[in-house]
């Protein structure tokens, strides 16, 4: 069993290891080891087009993550906290549809809609599409957290002490849910940043995201630069995932602290007028 697991993970990590090793290989053709070099990394740094595509991807991911997080927060609050209402199940199912849909369907669907409606393809249409793809991720992350906070009596306590529902939400629920909100936003950011298929179909002429740039590099010739780039991206991905993990695992402890502080504050406020 252990041997199998080792082989399984070796399979998963073989391409990553290859890419790491060959990013330092001083050879144009990727096969044999010709000695250590950092020149591919230096070349990345000088590649203006590449850096521009990186900037585009980052901007796109920021906008998409912001939209997806806001929409996800609102929707998941209603789904997790409101008493049952008609259409709840349907809405909840609808929110997971983008996860089930092959990306090529969304790509060509959006392409045919935009061309039919004569919507010009630009940065914003792409950002809207990315937000749609990322929405299930933010909604499910935030919803899980809101559901686990449901049993806490802190909001009731706050309202007993005279807070309105909105105040209780802003002072208690929102801070407690913040780690999950940030974690969801990070996930949405990653989803948008890595997206290739949808962008491939609906990025207009002038919009080159990083994955699209990588695709054209792969199409028009083999270059070890891709390995160097991939290593940088991998590092960034691991950092983001680690951050998300820490947020989620640290959330439990800090939630208790935050709750204590919130209650203390509320008690003080309630005591003041007296």
């Amino acid at each position, binding site marked *: 069993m252990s041997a199998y697991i080792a082989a*399984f993970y070796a*399979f998963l990590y073989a*391409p990553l290891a290859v890419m790491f090793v060959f990013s330092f290989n001083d050879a144009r053709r990727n096969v044999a080891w010709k000695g250590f070099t950092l020149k591919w990394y230096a070349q990345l740094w000088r590649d203006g087009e590449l850096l521009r595509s990186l900037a585009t991807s980052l901007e796109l991911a920021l906008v998409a993550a912001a939209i997806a997080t806001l929409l996800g927060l*609102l929707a998941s609050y209603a789904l997790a906290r409101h008493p049952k209402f008609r259409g709840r199940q349907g809405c909840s199912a609808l929110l997971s549809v983008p996860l089930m849909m092959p990306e090529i369907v969304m790509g060509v669907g959006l392409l045919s809609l935009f061309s039919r409606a004569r919507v010009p393809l630009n940065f914003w249409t792409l950002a809207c599409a990315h937000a*749609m793809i990322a929405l299930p991720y933010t909604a499910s992350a935030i919803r899980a957290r809101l559901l686990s906070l449901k049993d806490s009596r802190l909001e009731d306590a706050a309202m007993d002490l005279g807070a309105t529902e909105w105040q209780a939400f802003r002072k208690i629920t929102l801070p407690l849910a913040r780690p999950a909100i940030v974690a969801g936003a990070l996930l949405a950011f990653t989803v948008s940043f*890595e997206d290739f298929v949808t962008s491939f179909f609906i990025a207009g002429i002038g919009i080159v995201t990083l994955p699209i740039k990588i695709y054209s590099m792969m199409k028009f010739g083999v270059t070890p630069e891709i390995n160097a780039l991939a290593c940088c991206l991998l590092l960034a991905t691991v950092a983001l995932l680690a951050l998300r993990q820490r947020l989620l695992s640290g959330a439990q402890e800090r939630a208790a602290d935050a709750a204590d502080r919130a209650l203390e504050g509320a008690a003080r406020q309630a005591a003041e007028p007296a």
Partner: protein
Amino acid sequence: MDAWLSWLICGRSRKSSYALLAPAVLWLALFLIIPVACLLELGFLRLGPYGTVVFSLTLSNFSRAIEPRYLEILLRTLGYAGITTLLCLALGFPAAYYLSFRAGRRRELCLAALMIPFWTSCLVALYSWMIILGREGLLNSLLLRSGLIAHPLRLLNTPFSVVLGLAYFYIPFMVLPLYGSLEKLPRQYLEASYDLGAGRARTFFKVTLPLCLPGVVAGCILTFIPCMGDFLTAEFLGGPRTYLVGNLIQNQFLMAQDWPFGAALTSVLLILLVAGLYFYQRVEPQR
């Protein structure tokens, strides 16, 4: 303002729930439902001169989609997706089993390690596989040097490399649902089975496997669906003989400029998908 926000939050009125859900639902309607509807309609329209679309209804795109040469591609895609799914199940089940029963303190680490390749850009992984599998690639040079083979094997641009690539990309979609269902399995059932004298194999086939069947089905569907729509793997790891529906659709939209035919092909894909999801729904409630 405060009163209005409180009304929105508390959910005493159904309208407040709808108000909170409206932005997300509208967004999905605008960028998911309407595009798909538009695509379905496009499949019934006629292709005009110079890649334009003529608004007259026709079934010719669909009848063309099941012409032998296109049907072959469709069936090939089904076959590849099916084989990949089975391969993922065979490779992924022991991994999920290990994660759930044996990993112990290493579980968090193993789960995280499963997600890192998944979040790596698939283009980059494809590029790596090209280096590994190429004619003068890593695997061939290793095998040649070790003396196991005399001539380099043809690994890239074969059905083998395409299935390998697909399995590599979609195996987390198999392992995670499997892990989820194995996690939920009450451990007492297994103990009871052992106590009653069943061996390990018998316990596995009579208790573990039936109870995690929903996870198996979910994993298979979640693997199968994206495999059906994939075009990058076949584009980079495959050759002309491994042309899949995804490649055909991409070609119709971006090269051949025959959008109605591309839309019809996508609709066929969607119908298969909906059928799969329907099947999934039938199995799901037993969980």
